[in-house]
């Protein structure tokens, strides 16, 4: 089972490495969306400082959703997904490994880039840590919950739009607690409560989502 997890992780990371442009588009999308707001709203420093957490979190949400489409689609098209369904390891474990690999190339880079974007919004430096930590706890939840939607809409025509309609409402709690934690810290309060709620969301989704993804994959490959 551990061999299967390592094998899928290694395979998916290797594939991302050989198709770097796929990974880069989602990250560039994040940077560009986050950079559009100052251009549209105007460069009033106080305003920018106050909208920064929300804007960065919404951009992270959209970017994470953009990359969901390719999570299972390629495996479905070339038949490797069938082989995973017939693998020796339980499907939930396989799904968890795929989501982890996906998060490592699409979620983790956001955590690293976000402080740079925050500079652009003149967010005070002490808040960078809170922002990065909230993304570190929140983006895996986005990947896990999004993967359920990606599995359900597999092979559906116009699946991309359907996927957003399905997944975005489920992202709302993560957005509220994620952006809220940075707002709290900006107001001089402790963000601990929000961060703990994010951690709780992460634990619950890490425990349950892989099995839901597995069930969804079985349904959509029939």
């Amino acid at each position, binding site marked *: 089972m551990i061999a299967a997890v390592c094998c899928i992780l290694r395979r998916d990371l290797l594939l991302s490495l050989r198709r770097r442009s796929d990974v880069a588009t989602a990250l560039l999308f994040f940077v560009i969306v986050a950079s559009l707001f100052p251009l549209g709203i105007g460069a009033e420093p106080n305003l920018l400082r106050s909208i920064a957490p929300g804007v960065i979190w919404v951009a992270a949400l959209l970017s994470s959703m953009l990359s969901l489409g390719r999570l299972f689609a390629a495996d479905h098209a070339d*038949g490797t997904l069938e082989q995973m369904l017939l693998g020796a390891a339980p499907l939930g474990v396989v799904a968890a490994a795929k989501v982890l690999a996906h998060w490592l190339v699409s979620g983790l880079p956001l955590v690293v880039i976000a402080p740079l974007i925050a500079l652009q919004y003149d967010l005070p430096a002490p808040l960078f840590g809170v922002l990065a930590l909230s993304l570190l706890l929140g983006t895996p939840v986005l990947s896990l919950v999004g993967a359920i939607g990606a599995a359900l809409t597999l092979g559906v025509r116009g699946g991309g739009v359907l996927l957003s309609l399905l997944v975005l409402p489920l992202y709302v709690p993560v957005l509220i607690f994620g952006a809220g934690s940075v707002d709290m810290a900006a107001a001089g309060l402790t963000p601990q409560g929000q961060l703990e709620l994010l951690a709780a969301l992460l634990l619950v989704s890490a425990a349950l989502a892989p099995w839901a993804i597995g069930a969804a994959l079985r349904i959509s490959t029939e």
Partner: protein
Amino acid sequence: MLEASDIELERGGRPLLRGLSLALEGGELLRVAGANGSGKTTLLKVLCGLLVPDGGEVRWRGAPIRQLREDYSRHLVYLGHAPAVKDDLTAAENLAVSCVLAGLAAAPQAVQQALARYELPADVAVRKLSQGQRRRAALARLLLSETVPLWLLDEPFAALDAAAARLTGDLIARHVARGHAVVYSTHQPSGIDDSTVRVIELG
């Protein structure tokens, strides 16, 4: 060993498999024949558990495969229509990955030997190979699956040249001679001696 009873399956509002039953013992070779669209691929998917039939059930050594799940998957090799190889990986990487996922040991040396038997370049990305070579890359897994008791092969001879078809036919015959079971589908005459084969005709 493998039993299917009263399999009923509807596709697109039209019954495809109606009350189909079959039983397969070790050392038996079953060919699924029939015209295009007669349900050969569907039957193989039902037998490996990818498709759940509307009625009837498939049993492996007496137990329904729906309950066995991975315990059944470990005992079978299913090669479907799609070659199940990643374009961006080399043939060797693909073969190693599919063996590990199937729970088989895949020593690098064994992988290289299997690819050499099918005359495949090990270190070239699969995207640069032809359709027939991709098919060979998928079939090379059979050489590493000689201990797996059930092979379910969907059109194993499609897109193969004479030499590769002969090699695949030999592998199937040897597997059956070892006392294992093989089910394969084909709509064309195959490289296998028909006197040893049981045929089930769909449609």
